């Protein structure tokens, strides 16, 4: 699903966030991305979602070389990636329902279809009763689940999460991770950046570790091509 070939990322200002990163993440895999603060985890995810472009090397997602993507095509690629953020990035002046519906509205779904899919997504994250509420009235864990519902409502084949449990207590974190496992079980590829090494070890999924921009891939992941 995701392939990196000798990817380098140097930010303007000269800092090299990623150096010669190569790995392959097969379809329908769930994997963790760890490393110290500043190791380049967020940068790697941003390359996949086309928020940043690599300085050198190739990034392929679902067989498509992102380097050849024109700006106009970016939205259509992002629609096939569910993104989850540590700070949720919800619209706080819209209801839970409207937040989750946004990807569907953007893609031009019909009204009835939107309502049906939003309810299904909220049901999956256990927030069905709260669709009329505003995000501020929800707890941190609930807000994160709204973010997850929004990411999966479109049924994207790939989920990227950047420290989705950063602000949550261990029990809630585990709950959220189990949620990701459920999506993975129905065939979604999941890549989660996290600091929480305890959780990573406990869940036992393949791990990609970054150290100062250099990658050590787990033995459970295939050798990069």
């Amino acid at each position, binding site marked *: 699903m995701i392939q990196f070939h000798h990817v380098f990322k140097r930010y303007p200002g000269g800092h090299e966030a990623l150096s010669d990163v190569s790995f392959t993440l097969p379809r329908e895999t769930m994997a963790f991305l760890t490393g110290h603060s500043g190791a380049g985890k967020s940068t790697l995810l941003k390359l996949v*979602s086309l*928020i940043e472009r690599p300085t050198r090397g190739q990034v392929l*997602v*679902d*067989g*498509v070389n992102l380097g050849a993507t024109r700006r*106009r*095509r970016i*939205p*259509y*690629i*992002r*629609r*096939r990636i569910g*993104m989850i953020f540590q700070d949720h*990035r*919800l*619209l706080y002046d819209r209801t839970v329902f409207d937040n989750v519906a*946004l*990807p569907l509205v*953007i*893609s*031009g*779904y*019909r009204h009835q*279809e939107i309502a049906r899919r939003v309810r299904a997504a909220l049901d999956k994250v256990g927030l069905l009763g709260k669709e009329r509420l505003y995000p501020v009235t929800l707890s941190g864990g609930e807000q994160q689940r709204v973010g997850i519902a*929004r990411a999966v409502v479109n049924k994207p084949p790939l989920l990227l999460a950047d420290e989705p449990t950063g602000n949550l207590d261990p029990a809630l974190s585990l709950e959220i991770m189990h949620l990701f496992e459920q999506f993975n079980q129905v065939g979604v590829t999941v890549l989660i950046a996290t600091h929480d090494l305890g959780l990573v070890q406990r869940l036992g999924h393949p791990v990609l570790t970054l150290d100062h921009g250099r990658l050590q891939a787990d033995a459970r992941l295939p050798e990069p091509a």
Partner: protein
Amino acid sequence: MAGADRRQPARHSLPGGLVLSHLRTLIASLGVFYRTPFSSLMTSAVLGIALALPAGLYLILVNIQQLGAGWDGTARISLFIKRSVPDAEAAQLARRLRQWPEIAQVTFRTRAQALEEFRRHSGFAGALRALKENPLPAVIIIQPTRRHSEPRAIAALLERLRQLPLTARAQLDLQWVKRLFSIMEIGQRAVHVIAGLLALAVLLIIGNTIRLDIQNRRDEIIIAKLIGATDAFIRRPFLYGGLWYGLIGGALAWLMVEVAIGLLAGPVQRLATLYASQFSLTGLGLLPGLTLLGIAALLGLAGSWLAVRRHLSAIEPT
């Protein structure tokens, strides 16, 4: 990604669905007037005033033009006959003048007729009755042919008429109309310049309002981009916002102009009656009113488009 934009049955089929989605955004973009009614109305009022000014000036010009239209463009010469000349002799002169090739039409008014007319229209009937003798001269009103209405020919005709022995005075009625027309030409230019400047002001006001709106909704724009919104999708509510500002400003301007006309109509009517004129103030009317709305809407759209073009692409997720 292969088939990234594969069409799915649950989506709107073009173009009906697209129209519906546009309509929904159009309605939704009115939301800003609901969310921030005070500042939105203030902006609309400023736009209304800026649009009402040129519309009002235009209307003044139209009305003056109508006033001038009473004179049908051809000149008219009033030939006043010496008071010592009997009516019969004057009438004979009128008949002779009718034969002149440069004259199209001749109307003769005896001293008595002139007096009657004056009495009817001036409101000085009482004062006239006090006079022993009719103070007014007989008048021959001469309308030259169209060919002889141009300034040089008419000046020559006027000169010839002045040379006639019975003439007391020959006066070209057109002169003030002509002056009025040339003043109006200047007026028209001025209105165009002012309208241009104010249109620019409207453009900038709307552009700036939309720019602020874009800045206020920065987070929303970034989130929308992150989850795959196209530029067109993000642009749409702002463009419609500008359209609404233009339309509402234009409607306010129309209203202001009509109210102003309503306030002026009474006094103008009274003044016109004093001058025995049928003249009455005309309002903006449907077509020019709709034109005003159309121009306002276009300015709104253009203003927001400028803002969107400049500021929207600068907002990218990081």
